[in-house]
């Protein structure tokens, strides 16, 4: 066999291996999805979405769970969005390159990798106990905000970095201050990217059960929360609760709830993809 034949064979072999690796992930996901859909799709109806939890599987619904998830989603967004963007803008545009800012940068990147249950413990100590909020929506949203802040900061910085130097120069040369340049040029040009990052971060937060269980969110909440100071549950906790029951009917409920949770996540991801696509089409440097 000549060398070039050998190389071609290696090339081919690697290609096959690559396809195999790609498929593993997809096939496992597909099997999981099909399994869940078969199990749970029949259970989803209007009553399931609008009923309160119950001891009897057949009459139990997820109204309080998805309402809680929605509350958490909105509150976390409202808290993490301005904080994360402000921090990202500061680090990228204002902070001088010192040892301190380097230290901060490395640690923000590290924070993005901290296990979510650690954030739960932090939230329990800080919000539930020290601030005396109790296991309410606001405490949960603050905890999840901490969890997604590093991601929001990092994506904000990446998006801001992508705005070319020449745009800033153009703005400065016309007499704009730093703040005016950030507000009128940098943020509008990077907003699509920032929003995409925030939504992806939120879709991660939506799936979290562990930190919320730690701060004391309940599995059984017999009412829909009406204010941030109410007790709450969320879909992942409801699912966790149902899957730990022995009766088969509850497993069906869990599968149905998983479908709803997946729909919310896919919807958020879809919005993110759409925004990114629109951004790329609108702005060509």
């Amino acid at each position, binding site marked *: 066999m000549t060398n070039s034949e050998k190389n071609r064979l290696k090339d081919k072999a690697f290609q096959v291996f690559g396809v195999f690796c790609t498929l593993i992930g997809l096939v496992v996901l597909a099997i999981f999805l099909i399994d869940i859909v078969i199990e749970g799709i029949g259970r989803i109806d209007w009553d399931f979405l609008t009923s309160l939890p119950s001891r009897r599987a057949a009459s139990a619904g997820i109204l309080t769970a998805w309402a809680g998830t929605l509350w958490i989603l909105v509150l976390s967004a409202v808290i993490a969005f301005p904080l994360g963007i402000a921090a990202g803008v500061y680090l990228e545009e204002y902070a*001088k390159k010192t040892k301190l800012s380097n230290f901060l940068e490395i640690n923000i990147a590290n924070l993005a990798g901290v296990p979510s249950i650690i954030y739960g413990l932090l939230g329990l100590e800080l919000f539930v106990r020290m601030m005396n909020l109790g296991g309410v929506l606001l405490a949960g949203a603050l905890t999840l905000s901490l969890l997604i802040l590093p991601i929001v900061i990092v994506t904000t910085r990446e998006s801001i970095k992508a705005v070319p130097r020449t*745009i800033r120069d*153009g703005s400065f040369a*016309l*007499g704009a201050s730093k703040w005016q340049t950030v507000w009128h040029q940098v943020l509008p040009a990077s907003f699509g990217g920032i929003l995409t990052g925030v939504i992806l971060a939120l879709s991660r937060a939506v799936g979290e059960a562990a930190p919320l269980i730690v701060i004391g969110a309940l599995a059984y909440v017999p009412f829909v929360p009406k204010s941030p100071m109410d007790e709450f549950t969320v879909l992942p906790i409801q699912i966790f609760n149902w899957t730990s029951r022995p009766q088969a009917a509850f497993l069906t409920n869990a599968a149905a709830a998983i479908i709803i949770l997946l729909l919310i996540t896919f919807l958020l991801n879809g919005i993110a993809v759409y925004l990114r696509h629109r951004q790329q089409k609108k702005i060509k440097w």
Partner: protein
Amino acid sequence: MTKKHSKLEAINLDAYYGDFHALKGINIAMEEKAVTAFIGPSGCGKSTFLRTLNRMNDYIDGFRIEGQVLLDGRDIYAADVRVDELRKEVGMVFQKPNPFPKSIFENVVYGLKIQGIKDKNVLQEACEKSLQHAALWNEVKDKLDKSALALSGGQQQRLCIARALAIQPSVILMDEPASALDPISTAKIEDLIHELKKDYTIVIVTHNMQQAGRVSDHTAFFYMGELVEYSKTKTMFTSPKDTRTQNYITGRFG
């Protein structure tokens, strides 16, 4: 050249990027309502010097200057000078056209809007006047609300000039304004420079010696951070005094 008022002046100017000594003892006076060209090989300090004239280097970490830059006799690096006020007086056009990703109208009035001018009539009038001044009005008057990014490169560069004119500066700095453009667009920019020097003091950095010869009244030759020679453009191109200048303009290096 001493009869006319000198608009911009550098006195014993030294500039550093960290440890790198980028400009060495520059002394130069630029005449009002005339075109001064800076030429020299890459890295000779001509762009650095241009950018000290409206303090665009302020944002570069480790950049500092010694000496003075005078605009109408006033030191622009004095403690009481506000940089935004200075830049209203000294406009700038960059090498690569850099329109904002906004409409043509919004591009032209950006400098006015950030000064807090909101009156629609004032803005529209300024927009038309500036675009006419930049010889772009006839090409864009029907699509002022369209994105500036849809314009050709040459049009974008004239838009950037219009944008600089809108805030009514008295000096316009141009950093190789035609180097990214085709010959026809370049000719239009050069014609425009001829027109603009009736009302504005223009300082232009260029790599293109023919261009310096065509558009400028005075030429300054920079080499390794020094101002080697500064004289009337005609004089410099016909009888350069320094051998380095001669070698450069005859194309022996650079």
